[in-house]
């Protein structure tokens, strides 16, 4: 598979997963209406509203917010001319504007990108990654981060987070209603089918879990897409592949202040083994290396 078919496949899968999210929201609303009756329709916009406000505020100010959450410091060209040279190379290859650049003082090698659009993009590197990687490897990492910018992954993950958030809030509210008396009027007609009631209940309980899984699956697809897009920028899969090998062989993990931004790093800061593959925000690094190797053999 070359990077063009890879990019197309990952984009298709993202759309499929986002549609899946939409279907899930619809299922939850439908289940709520079946279980509690039409009177609960009013809480749907409330749940969506809360999710929208909480997620889109952080989406809009993502570049600034992430700086505080990760402890990254903005730097200027004169602070690290070589790094800026490399980033400038990738902006020429991708046709993207120059992003803001930040450094996280941390010996674990890692990097991330954020920002609501290419004009407000921010890419950050740990001091560790700048120390251990050579020119080609760093170029691969930068291309991966700029690929997130080009693919507008901050937007995609904001959409995914909003839907997953709305589902979680909705399900939470409904479960509370169930326990604390607000429950459905058992004497009312029209929703008496016990099978429909049980299915609705199961949907309400499982929906937040399914939403989390879909959200993680979207994040994994965006990582694979970013790898493929990075190769379309540099046409050098070997650089990113050997960078990922460095990350894989390094066991140190970034000292995260918050797990809320775990998904934005190039290598997940969460211990991969403790999280089930279904909830992991990144594809296994070995798998990513294998895909890049198959692209190398094409060149």
């Amino acid at each position, binding site marked *: 598979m070359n990077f063009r078919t890879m990019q197309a496949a990952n984009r298709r899968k993202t759309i499929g997963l986002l549609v899946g999210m939409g279907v899930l929201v619809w299922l939850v609303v439908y289940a709520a209406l079946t279980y509690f009756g039409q009177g609960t329709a009013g809480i749907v916009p409330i749940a969506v509203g809360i999710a929208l406000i909480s997620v889109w505020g952080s989406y809009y100010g993502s570049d600034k917010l992430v700086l505080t959450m990760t402890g990254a410091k903005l730097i200027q060209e004169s602070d690290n001319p070589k790094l800026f040279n490399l980033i400038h190379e990738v902006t*020429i290859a991708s046709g993207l504007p120059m992003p803001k650049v930040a450094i996280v003082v941390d010996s674990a090698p890692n990097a991330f990108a954020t920002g609501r659009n290419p004009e407000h993009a921010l890419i950050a590197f740990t001091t560790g990654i700048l120390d251990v990687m050579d020119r080609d490897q760093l170029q691969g990492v930068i291309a991966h981060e700029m690929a997130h910018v080009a693919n507008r992954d901050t937007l995609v993950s904001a959409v995914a987070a909003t839907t997953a958030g709305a589902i979680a809030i909705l399900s939470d509210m409904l479960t509370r209603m169930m326990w604390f008396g607000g429950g459905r009027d058992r004497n009312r007609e029209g929703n008496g089918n016990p099978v429909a009631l049980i299915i609705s209940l199961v949907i309400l309980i499982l929906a937040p879990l399914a939403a989390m899984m879909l959200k993680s699956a979207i994040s994994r697809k965006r990582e694979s897409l970013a790898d493929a897009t990075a190769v379309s920028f540099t046409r050098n899969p070997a650089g990113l592949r050997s960078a990922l090998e460095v990350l894989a062989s390094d066991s140190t993990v970034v000292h995260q202040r918050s797990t809320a931004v775990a998904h934005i790093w190039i290598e997940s800061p969460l211990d991969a083994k403790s999280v089930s593959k279904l909830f992991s925000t990144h594809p296994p690094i070995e798998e990513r290396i294998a895909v890049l190797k198959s692209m190398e053999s094409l060149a």
Partner: protein
Amino acid sequence: MKTIIVLGVIALIAVFIIAQYNRLVRLNITVDEAWAQIEVQLKRRADLIPNLVETVKGYAKHEQSTFDAVVAARAKATSASSVADTAAADGMVTQALRGLLAVAEAYPDLKASANFMSLQEELSTTENKVAFSRQFYNDNVRSLNTAVKTIPSSLFAGLAKVTEREFYEVENPEDRNVPNVKF
């Protein structure tokens, strides 16, 4: 009722034509910008060369033929204007610079000098920028040429005064020549 439908259809057709026209013009502008980027990067490299040659000369006085090759290639590159000429000269400069760096390999003092090391970083980033601007240009020429040749956009190419553009092809002598073996 009938007139509304007719007007609606006319409006749709107009929107379609405008979209096709704008797309072609936009692609053409992107190719122009990509070309300007190539020129900027080639200029950067040309500006770097005298300094580099002087630095290497300070340590390696007897490599006159290598220096001459670099200077000659640079002169050709700065005078080239058409896409094909620029590409040909670009290939020559890349080749000559490779020769210069190969010479530098033989002088450890030179390689260790701070001036040379910073020049080498400048040179490798400039070479990458030249290569990437080339690649970006060619990708955009490919999109433009596809649009100019395929229906429906091809129907509006004349209207938008957009024609096929020339690819930037650098001939790498190493790709064609059989290695020169000397005994």
